[in-house]
Structures are given as C-alpha cells and as structure tokens.
C-alpha cells in the first residue's frame, strides 16, 4: 500500500508478519505510508484491520519482517468509541489536555495546564465545533460529539499521522458525513490519515485510497480500482454487486433467490 506516494515516507513495513501470542493474523504485509496518505483499510471482522493499525502504532510488534519509522514521527490515535470507559470522571477539556503534544508537556512537573496549553486546547475544540462542551463529562456527549472530542485530543498533539479505528462505527449518517469532512480538512492541512472501516458505501467509497485486507493485503488503489466484485469476493468471502452511483461505487449484497422482497 503506497497511497499516491507523494511526500516524505513516514512508515515502511517490509514483509511483516504479525499477530498475538504465536498466532499470526497478518502475513507478508508491505506498506509505505507517505505524508499525503488518506487511506481506508477495509475487510471483514477478524481479517487483521485493527492489527495492521496497531502495527503502525507500535502497539503490536512484528513476528517477522521490519518496520521503519521516520525519527520523531508524531502519531495520534482515535480508538473505537465502543472501547472507551464513558463513566470515567473526566471532562472534555481534561481529555484533550491529557495527551500533551510533546514528551516535555507530558513530563511537566505540575498537574495543571498552562495558559498556552488551555488556549491551544480551546482552539482545537473550537475548530471541531465543541468548545461550548469543554466542561461536560464525556458521557454527556452525543456519539458525534464523542468522536469529535477524540479527534480534538488527537489534533492537540499536532500529529503528522492520524490513525482511526472504525471512526464511523455506531454513529448516524449526519455524524458520519461530519467526520468525513473533518478528516478531509485535516488531510488538506497536511495530516496523513489511515482509518479502518466496515462501511464500504458510507465511508470507504468516499476515500481517495483503499486497502482490502483479509489476513494479507488483497488489493490496494483508488475506490474505482478496488471496489470491484472479484476483489470484494476475495476480501469478504461473499459475492457482492457493485453499482455506479453519481460517479461513486456502491456495494450491495447480491440478492439470493430465497430472499423475499418486502412489500410496500
């Protein structure tokens, strides 16, 4: 996976095998992440999408192969909303400030934020349109606001590379569009973005670059190159029909004969 291959290379994976314990989940992954990257990793559950993301983050170590990372690379991560403890007693502002944009900030010897840090957190929250929610406990946010909060925490680190795990999982259509537009804006500002998604139509088809994964990289390229019946069948193990809709690819399940049509 190389994206458009423009800009400095941030991370390179060469013939990487990775997994948990002694069981590999991913095989023979070659990956070049560039500064211009805006990529969606798609694949069925258990195919290794999140493992690939965790490899890029350094949480999972390769069993074999090599990973080369640009020295001093600033990476930020937005986890799945389902994995977060929303009852944790923390406000939106505290959540944003906790990450710190540098090792120096994280090792600061006083617990409270400086005026400069508060200003920067406010600016990030304002950019994402949630500055009015700064003092709310995180459970009091809607799904879209929760996603924006984690984007704010990630942006506060001034990342070069932003990784998101299923950023539109469990959110409504409107929020999904908002998240997509936000990510497009960030990408335009020079942030490399890689995300995983199950959502072929709502998310993947809108991205400039896709990688299909099923324990190995099945295909990568533009949506036009990747969203094809034969590639999807190899990736998801099921036949799917692909439609052209306003110049975009739309995936529908191939209708089995025994499915009944719902009467209006």
């Amino acid at each position: 996976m190389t994206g458009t291959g423009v800009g400095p290379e941030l991370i390179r994976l060469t013939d990487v095998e990775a997994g948990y314990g002694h069981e590999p989940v991913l095989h023979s992954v070659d990956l070049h992440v560039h500064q211009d990257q805006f990529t969606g990793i798609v694949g069925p559950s258990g195919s290794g999408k999140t493992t690939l993301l965790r490899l890029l983050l350094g949480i999972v170590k390769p069993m074999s192969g090599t990973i080369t990372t640009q020295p001093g690379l600033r990476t930020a991560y937005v986890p799945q909303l389902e994995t977060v403890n929303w009852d944790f007693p923390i406000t939106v502002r505290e959540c944003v400030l906790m990450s710190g944009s540098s090792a120096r900030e994280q090792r600061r010897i006083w617990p409270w934020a400086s005026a400069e840090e508060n200003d920067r957190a406010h600016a990030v929250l304002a950019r994402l349109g949630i500055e009015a929610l700064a003092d709310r406990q995180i459970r009091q946010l809607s799904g879209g606001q929760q996603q924006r909060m984690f984007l704010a925490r990630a942006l506060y680190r001034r990342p070069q590379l932003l990784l998101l795990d299923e950023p539109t999982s469990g959110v409504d259509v409107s929020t999904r569009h908002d998240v997509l537009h936000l990510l497009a804006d960030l990408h335009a500002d020079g942030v490399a973005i890689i995300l995983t998604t199950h959502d072929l139509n709502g998310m993947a088809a809108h991205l400039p670059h896709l990688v299909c994964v099923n324990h190995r990289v099945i295909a990568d390229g533009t949506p036009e190159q990747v969203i094809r019946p034969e590639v999807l069948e190899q990736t998801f193990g099921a036949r799917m029909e692909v439609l052209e809709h306003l110049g975009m690819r739309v995936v529908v399940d191939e209708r089995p004969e025994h499915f009944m049509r719902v009467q209006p």
Partner: protein
Amino acid sequence: MDQLLEPFGYIFFREALLVAGLSGALLGFIGVFIVLRGMSYIGHGLSHSIFGGFAAVQLFAAQFYVLGAGLWGIASALAINTVTKRSRLGADAAIGVITTASFALGVALFARFGTSGPSFESALFGSILGISPEQILWLVLVSLLAVAFVFLRYRALLFSTFDPEVADVSGIRVNRIEAQLMVILSLSILATLTVIGVTLVAAMLVIPAVVARMLTDSFGRMLAWSTGIGTVSGLVGMYVSYYADVPSGTMIVLVGAAIFLVVFAFAGRSRRRRSAGLDSHVEPVPTTSVVR
C-alpha cells in the same frame, strides 16, 4: 461535654486520631486510581499478602517488620503485575494464588510462633493502641511520597488510567507508571495496617473513591472528595471506636460504609444526562448503473 472531650486528654488517643485521619486520607487518595483502574481486588489481595510478610519478618527481625513487610508487599504487587501480563492467567486468578498463599503463610507463622509486635487481632482489624512515633513518621513519609507521585506524574497517571493503550502510543511508559503505583499502594497499605488492619484496609481504598465518584464528574474533584471522605471516616471511626470498645479498623470502615449509604440514597436525583440533537442531512437524487 467533658465526657465527649475526655479521650482528647490522652496523648495516645490524639496520636491515634492523627494516624486514623491521615490513614483515611492516604487510602482515599490512592483509592481513586485503584477504583478507576478496576483494581479494587488487587488492594484486597495486597493487604492480605502483606500480612504474610508482616508475620514472617517478625520471626527474624521484629524491629525491621515495616521494611520486610514492605518489600514483601512490593514483591507481591510486582509478581501479580508480571503474572497477569505474561501468562494466560487473569489478574483475579494471579491475585487469588499469590496473595492468599501469602496470607495463609502469615496465619500459620502467627499460630506457630506468635509475635513480638502487634497482636494477631490488631494486625487483622487494627488497634487504637500501641502507635509508635516511628509509625506516625512512616505514615507521614508515605503520604508525602504518594502526594508527590500523583502531583509529579498527574497527567501520565490520568492518561494511563483512562486510556492505557493510547497513553502508551502517546509516549507514556504505562508499565512503569503501573509498577510505581503498585509500589505506592503497597507502602500505603503497610503504613495504615496497624490502625485499620489488613482485612479492612481494602475497604478504605474502595469506599471513599466510590462515594466521591457519585458526587462528581471531575477527576480532580474526585481526588479531593475521596481524600476528604477517607479523612472523615478515619477521624470519626477512631473517635467512635474509643467509646464502642471495638477495633478501630472496623469502626472506620463502618463510618465509611454509612457515608456510602447516605450518598447512594441521594445521588440518583442529582445526576442528569444530556444528549445533543443530530444534524439534518439531505441525500442527493440517485442515478444508478451496475458495474461489471
């Protein structure tokens, strides 16, 4: 009135009150991290584990029992951490094996050889008597250490408690923070052991923090509330235990439990949850063809 103030005329009681208040504060303070990390059971296990070290060290060098039991507790904490991370055993199983074996050893040693220090009952349930100046100094030092640790590592502690995986990715040494917290926890349990007792110290780690969580949605305020509730439980519990003639630890825990019940009864009314409206969205009119 004179009767109510009577115990304050005794220096041993004033010292006991100081130690009880400080013990409650220390356990309430550290307990916030233990509760929010879902480690309540580790506090329970560690206190039992330290009892084994407490009994064993008294056999050989009673004057160094604090040091010996402290090392024993730290070793147990680190062993639990290691076994949990490096084996298929869950934390509850690792704690169950390591700490109950240590506690059993302590009971066996007490039964076989007795003790030259605190009695068996005092070690288990705490005692108002026999608090030495060295113990007060030890408790003050551990309290200062705990406050310094939280103050200096506040962000890293908060981040690694809330979201350890992302904290790790963001450059925080989560394993090191956890190990340091385990050491502080062990020392805190040891320092409060003589007043609250090994079987009850875990309750004082949990109760103030749980009550504080019901009272606030802010992490900073939860720390303050938990410390305050621990202090009040310690002071009131110690005072009542003088008149009730029961081990101090039991009364401190009962006061904490009473505060919990009162707050629990009223907390539900004060909680509100908000949900924001969702933006409207208009889909374009489709023009569709099949891709082959």
